[in-house]
């Protein structure tokens, strides 16, 4: 199957999923541009919120003349603010995200799902692709013509190697304030989660982490001599895998994600590991809904 056809199919599945589950945009109070969602402040919506005394500079259109008639003092009539939610989608564009067809599909499906889910909610979405110290802001239009994959694969980081792959550098991303930040990454880099989580949570950001993973990554069945080809650098690395080594690898893999889970909890960040082997809706229901990373429509 051609990549564009595969991406198109993934887009279709993401659309279908977005009809079943969505980002929990309504469950929080928003501030920002006028939109469909109730804001945290007063605004010009039809929903009455409160009264308060008039202050110089208040809009005279909102003076409650009936109350002035009864009391002789100016009372302001306050209405609920209506704003647009803001979503910053950060995509880890390292090769491991597209390592196997299953993982590529799942990455594409999640990317499409978050974009469609945000757009259908009228949210303002920015998509940032990060590969090491290289980053790219994607036009949502590139999602619809499926050219995003080629663009982010053209990113070339200047640092990192097979034994110490570069972690995505978030500092350069133009993250917006008061945004829901969705970090889509398999987290297969040796960096400390704490700085990443702290940075992505800055400026009243609300972070959610979605980590697609392969079962063969978690529990490989290696045995014997291997010429491992690094997904990032394409370098060849001969290894002999014995049961003890395989056991240590599995422990290391579990520890790696246990640390991410632990740090996410500290930052009150929903952390969902999405298996690649299941279909998208099943995987989302199984991994994301129980921790309120997503909500049913």
């Amino acid at each position: 199957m051609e990549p564009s056809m595969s991406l198109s199919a993934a887009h279709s599945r993401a659309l279908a999923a977005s009809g079943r589950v969505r980002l929990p945009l309504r469950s929080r109070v928003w501030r920002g541009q006028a939109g469909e969602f109730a804001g945290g402040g007063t605004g010009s919506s039809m929903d009455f919120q409160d009264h308060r005394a008039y202050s110089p500079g208040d809009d005279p259109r909102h003076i409650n003349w009936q109350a002035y008639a009864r009391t002789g003092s100016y009372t302001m009539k306050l209405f609920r603010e209506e704003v647009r939610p803001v979503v910053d989608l950060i995509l880890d564009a390292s090769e491991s995200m597209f390592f196997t067809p299953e993982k590529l599909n799942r990455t594409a499906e999640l990317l499409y799902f978050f974009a469609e889910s945000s757009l259908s909610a009228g949210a303002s979405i920015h998509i940032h692709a990060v590969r090491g110290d290289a980053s790219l802001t994607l036009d949502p239009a590139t999602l619809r013509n499926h050219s995003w994959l080629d663009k982010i694969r053209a990113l070339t980081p200047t640092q990192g190697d097979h034994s110490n792959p570069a972690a995505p550098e978030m500092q350069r991303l133009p993250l917006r304030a008061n945004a829901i930040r969705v970090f889509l990454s398999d987290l297969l880099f040796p960096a400390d989660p704490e700085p990443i989580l702290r940075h992505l949570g800055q400026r009243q950001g609300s972070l959610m982490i979605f980590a697609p993973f392969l079962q063969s990554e978690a529990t490989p069945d290696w045995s014997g001599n291997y010429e491992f080809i690094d997904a990032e650098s394409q370098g060849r690395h001969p290894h002999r895998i014995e049961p003890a080594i395989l056991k240590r690898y599995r422990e290391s893999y579990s520890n790696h994600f246990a640390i991410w889970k632990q740090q996410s909890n500290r930052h009150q960040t929903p952390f969902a590991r999405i298996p690649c082997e299941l279909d998208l809706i099943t995987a989302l229901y199984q991994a994301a809904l129980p921790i309120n990373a997503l909500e049913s429509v």
Partner: protein
Amino acid sequence: MLTNPLGLLALLGIPAVLAIHFLQRKSIELPVSTLFLLERTQRDAISGRRFDRLIPSVPLWMQLLGVLLLTWLLVEPRYKKENSVQRVAIVVDSSASMSVFRDDGIKRLTDELPAIQGLASAMEITVLESAPDRPRIYTGTSLDDMAKALKKWSPKEGMIDPTRSIRLARSLVSSEGSVIYLTDTPAEELPFEARLLSVGRPVENVGFTGITFANEQGALVWRAVVKNYGKSPATRTWKIVTADGSTEPASLKLAPGGITTIQAAFPTDAKEVRLELSPDDFPLDDCLPIVKPAPKPLTLFAATSPAFADLGEKLVNSLEATSSSNDATSADIMLATYDPLDPTLPVGNAIVFVEDSTATGTYLRGGILAEASPLMDGLNWQSLLVRETIQLDRQPTDQVLLWQEKRPLIFLRHLPATESRPAASQLFFNFDLRLSNVERQPAFIVLLHRFAGAVRDAKVAPASLNLETNQPVKLTLDPKQLATITQTSPDGKVLSKTSSETLPASFTTPPAPGFLTLSQADETLLSASLHFADTREADFTACSATDTLTESNQAAIDRHTKEDPYWRVWFILLIAAVLVAWKFVQTKSTEPTVASPVGGR
């Protein structure tokens, strides 16, 4: 023991199998993205340790087992039989040149014999000399005793054909034993399946090769020949040593292969003299003992008519140590003419001619035929012309030496000993010499010299001779007297002294240089010097070290050992190992070898 040590080369199959497993066991190529997790846990299995990559497998173990079994079968192991005996007969070269390499030969023998014993439980050793008449040097089972016996052995013979001794050695050890010929000069091929052990090497040697004497200006002068047998120039000194002292050493330079002659007057007051060269590795020819030569004297009494006086004078002058005598009874040889008018013949040793001055006959016709006799050996009489003359009375016991047709021309008469006179020989010329050309015949002169020599040999009289070692000498002794032979070294030490009443007529001089005296009834009949003059033995250029001891003796191995009784089991195991390895390899080859990629960075 291993019958075929070359079979151990099959062990090279082990590295070959390992190499094949290293090279053919290609690693599975697998894209992976969790390398940082893997290498974090597996620091000791990173690249660069290729031996870690050899995974023990059934085919590997089966192939290694197969190589070991194949090696075991190829080396053909054999086990020692109990009570087996290896018989070894060693023929040592008795030639004098071996004296230089005797110790080397003993060491080689003691080194090599254990290998020849092989797996036999015991070894019986017999050591013979190549000179067949010598006693055995050693018979026994101990290498140490053999070495001690050989230490006492002193080879001094000339060049000897070892065939007889090798034949004897082979008969001693039968066809199953080993015969070794220890020499210093490699032989191309030895008979009777003897194995060669040559321990020689080229040795620089300078030595005397011989001596002659001459009378010059009334003095006796000796001339000795010195030769450099080596391949490089040599410088030596020589001196004359007598009982009174020695001369100052004189220097001598010889080119490679060069020969020179040294000479001096024989010391007038010395009996035994020796010439000495500065020593080298081969000492036998570095010393030349000499005595003043003096053959047995011979007296000649001429009882011929004046017509033959000239012949008698010539004969006296031409014969060595011969003088004229006027006493017919004491003369050793009488020269007489036969006169039919006075047919009296001499009674002792005599040469008798016919004198016929009355007639001039015709030349005799017919073929000339010489009878076989030591006196006539090799002489040519075909050009002899003889006129018919009167003839001597020939007795039936006379031995005719020369015929012309049926007429005897020369005959020999032996007169047996009587109480009054010893045995005698008489040579008759049955024609008048003057009526023939016999005086111009070389055969005539030689015949007279031979007859005179035979008379001289038969005479019991003192003589002084310069002889070579191992030289046959004819002895003429008084059979009624006790004879004593005394052998001394060149410096006068008595080496042996033997007395016997029955010394053989033919005597071989001892092999060691020195002096020899033969005395009988207080009279010294022979004073002789003995010097080594075998130039073949003194020349070491052909000597070299080689051996054929390692030539396999399959029969001896079979005799002393038995084959591995389990070789069939090993063979079946080998086949099984090969089949199992093949089966596993076949099974393995049907499995996929390239895995699908697994995830993670």
